Every structure is written in structure tokens, then in C-alpha cells.
């Protein structure tokens, strides 16, 4: 089973300053989910408006709204899939004086 990432290590080494942080994603994700739930009605309204003004305006509003919600749910699922696929991602860019290192666990 896929699981969301637990930690993210971000390390920046510059000439003048050094910065290392372990981001506890397992704590941030519930907050993001809460924010999403709060914003969901607004997202729904935005989708309905966009659907009414844009493509598919010949369809009844209920179908358009249902389609919009379905789309957003699919979008949220895909975004969650991407998030769950991130563990193992490592980016390390450096030159003689600077280094940026990101590692998702």
C-alpha cells in the first residue's frame, strides 16, 4: 500500500549561510487535508462557475456540477498518488561554493 512521505530533508549550503531542516510531512499533511476540506465548498463554487461559463453549458447545471466535483475528486486522488510516490526522491545540486539537497523519506 502506498503511503505518503513522512519526512523531507532540505539542506542549503551557501557561502554565507547554512540551512538544514527536516520537514515533518506526517504532521503537515493532516493540516493540508483540513485546509482542503475548508476550501472544498469554494472549489466547488469555482468549478460550477467555470463549467457554467465554459464548455458544456448546454448540459443541466446538476450534471455539470456533479461532473465538476467528480473531476476535482479525481484530481485530488491523482495529486495524492503523486504525493505518495515521492518517497525516495532525491535532488542534489552543488557547485564549489553552494549546495542544495532535497530528500524525501
Amino acid at each position: 500500500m502506498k503511503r505518503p512521505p513522512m519526512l523531507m530533508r532540505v539542506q542549503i549550503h551557501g557561502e554565507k549561510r547554512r540551512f538544514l531542516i527536516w520537514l515533518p510531512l506526517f504532521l503537515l499533511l493532516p493540516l493540508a487535508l483540513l485546509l482542503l476540506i475548508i476550501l472544498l465548498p469554494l472549489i466547488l463554487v469555482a468549478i460550477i462557475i467555470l463549467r457554467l461559463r465554459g464548455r458544456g453549458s448546454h448540459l443541466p447545471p446538476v450534471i455539470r456540477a456533479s461532473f465538476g466535483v467528480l473531476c476535482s475528486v479525481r484530481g485530488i486522488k491523482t495529486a495524492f498518488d503523486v504525493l505518495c510516490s515521492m518517497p525516495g526522491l532525491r535532488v542534489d545540486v552543488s557547485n564549489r561554493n553552494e549546495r542544495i539537497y532535497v530528500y524525501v523519506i
Partner: protein
Amino acid sequence: MSENQKKILEMLANKKISVDEAFQLLSVLKTEASAPESTAEAGTTVKPKPKYLRVTVQPSSGHEHDDYAERVNVRVPMSLIRSGIKFTSLLPPEARDKVTGALHDKGIDFDMRNLKPEDIETIIEALNDLEVDVVSSNEVVKVFVES
């Protein structure tokens, strides 16, 4: 050490054969010994699934200590690539058409609308054999798959 190898070395010690002949005979024995194993392996070996796509950029030899020399080491999980490709299904049709058109202009005849989930798996599996090495005067770029 096998009996045949001992015999060859004995013949060499007794000066019945030359060093070159002994070397050739030992090489033949070695080839014969490894051939059945390799064919058996070829029949049963299953390529491990690719886990990560790696992209590395290293300064070429002689440029390691240059001020502008940059090193890049990126490891992308294959599952992330898989999910990323699936993400394309969320693109609005207008945007997808634009991407397809832009690819066509570049000579790439690829329609994103035809991308199916089974195709994604085929693409991921095909990446197993991917290996790109670009060597320039300053940098060495490598793209490969890690299992």
C-alpha cells in the same frame, strides 16, 4: 581447480606445451564452463523492475576544481514518473491539443489522448534499458535507470 586444469598445468610444467598453448587451453575450458551457466541464466533471469531514474551531471576530468563546475545528482522514483504520466489525464482537452500540436511541430508524432494505463507500464519497463551518456569538454551527463 578442475582435473583438466591440473592436467594442462602439469603438461606446462613438463614442458609438453608452451605457455601460449596452456593459456589457450585454459581459456577454452573457462569458456566451456561458463557457457552452460550463462544460457541457463538467460532462460530464467527476469530483469528487476526499475526503481529509480537517475540523472547525474559531473564535471569532466580536469574540470573538477573549476569554479563553475556543477554537480547534479537526481534520483526520481519510477512510481513518481508513473503518477506524473497519469496526471496528464487531468489536463484540459484544449491544453492537451496544444501539447500534441507542439510535439508534432517538433517532429514527434505522439498524441497524449492515446496514452493508456497499459502503455504507461510498457514505457516504464522500456526505461529499464535506458542509458544515455553525454560527454562534453566540461561535463559528463548520464541518464540511467537504477533497479
